[in-house]
């Protein structure tokens, strides 16, 4: 294996942003996998992209909007809204206290 692109600290920082707790074994595994991903994307460096406009959207559409006050056809009842969660209290989603 060659030199790692991402350091152990960078892996831990990224895991922290994703709220993942990694074991030492997993850190090594992710380090390998993410390096592989970055190397794959690095293939682009072989091409001259200096004249290519960045692609922000792959669809050929613009200015797609809806009119304010339009009928809500997808609204959910409280019951439906909470139906996928384990913990609720007084019609609210409950999670472990964060503050």
């Amino acid at each position, binding site marked *: 294996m060659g030199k790692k692109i991402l350091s152990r600290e960078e892996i831990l920082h990224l895991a922290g942003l994703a709220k993942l707790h990694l074991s030492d074994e997993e850190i090594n595994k992710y380090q390998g996998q993410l390096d592989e991903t970055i190397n794959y994307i690095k293939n682009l460096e072989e091409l001259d992209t200096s004249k290519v406009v960045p692609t*922000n959207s792959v669809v050929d559409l613009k200015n*797609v909007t809806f009119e304010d006050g339009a009928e809500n056809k997808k609204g959910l009842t409280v019951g439906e809204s909470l139906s996928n969660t384990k913990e609720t*209290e*007084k*019609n609210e*989603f409950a999670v*472990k206290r*964060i503050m």
Partner: protein
Amino acid sequence: MNKYIPVIGLEIHVELKTKSKMFCQCRADYFAKKPNTQTCPVCLGLPGALPVPNKKAIEWVQKIGAALDCKLRPHSKFDRKHYNYPDLAKGYQISQYDEPFAVNGRVTVCNPRNKTKKSFGITRVHMEEDTAKLTHRGSGTYVNFNRSGVPLVEIVTEPDFHNADDVKMFLEELQVIIRYLDVSDADMEKGSMRMEPNISLQKITNDRSQITKKSELPNYKVEVKNINSFRFVKQAIEYEIKRQTEILEKGKTPVQETRGWDDKKNKTYSQRSKEEAQDYRYFPEPDIPPFIFEENYLDEVGVSLPELPQEKIDRYIADYKVRESDAFVLTRSRKLAEYFEKVVSISKKPQQVANLIINKKISIDLTPEKFCQKVEALLSPKVTDRKMLSETVKKTIVDNPKVVSDYKAGKKNVLMFLVGQVMKAMKGRADANLVRQQLLENIL
């Protein structure tokens, strides 16, 4: 002399009062509604749900941009801003990164007390979605998604402020402008206007005390959140200036972080270290196609703006010859300003009408026509019934022997009491100077 100059920038969030949310058709007026009754797959962040932007919300953010003298971008798009927190079910907020709807504005604020004008730069005005509302109780945090996806406008200023008073003055003006546009209640108690000042201190290296270049800005920034009144903004900034001065005096650098404002202890407290922009991993929102605006359309946004408070002040001074401080008071609400203008268009006595409105001598609940009639009655010279006056004066003197003797003993100010008594008995139908004169003649 101060060794440090405060360098303050502001982020202001304003919730728009559209009927629908920003990216779905759920109702946006979440205030005092039962939890989780105004949700759908989009604002709950369910997999596969597709956001579609609210047309009016975009028109309104452009209106705000134009009112703040910004350039409206012909090309704009939405981006995803990633972070993990229970108020954000998708794991990202739909916001704008490098192509906000409006950029490079300026707001000029006049201070009627010292008649100075100051101008502050607006960096950008962008559109995003509000998050769910969290409540913390016991060992739990409870999430209500009614607020999730409500249109939220973020206004970012340049770090052009150097003291808390200017910040307060600017925020008050901004609130007035937003309300003129009729796009938000901008009510801080209800949370439809929120502000986050970022504060740092710049050391004065020599007597050139000007800070203009960005490269000379301090290498840290403290952001204060959870402030819900103009008074608290001022207090929080003053507290931070003191706290940071103490740290700098010890030769240390304040930590770059987000702090909260505790309005009971009148202190800021550490909340979390601030993420760097790169940690948000912004990228273009793939579910929403970009926006391209014609020049005509963007020009029309500027043209369609109502006359703004600062423009009204200038016009009242120039055309109506109204005192600047009065013009300021009259323009704090669009409704009051328009009422004043209607009355003036009938009565043609601008300064007198201004006085009567500001001193609340005549109720502004009256129709402008009724108001004018009262103006005429008040301002026209009094026709006094001489016979009635003479009788009333004599009776008042007889009825108030103590006051009269006090006056004779040298208590000159009791005369006003007697004038008042006469006026009351005459139901106001007498000329005050004449009453005074008659009283004096009769007492002596």
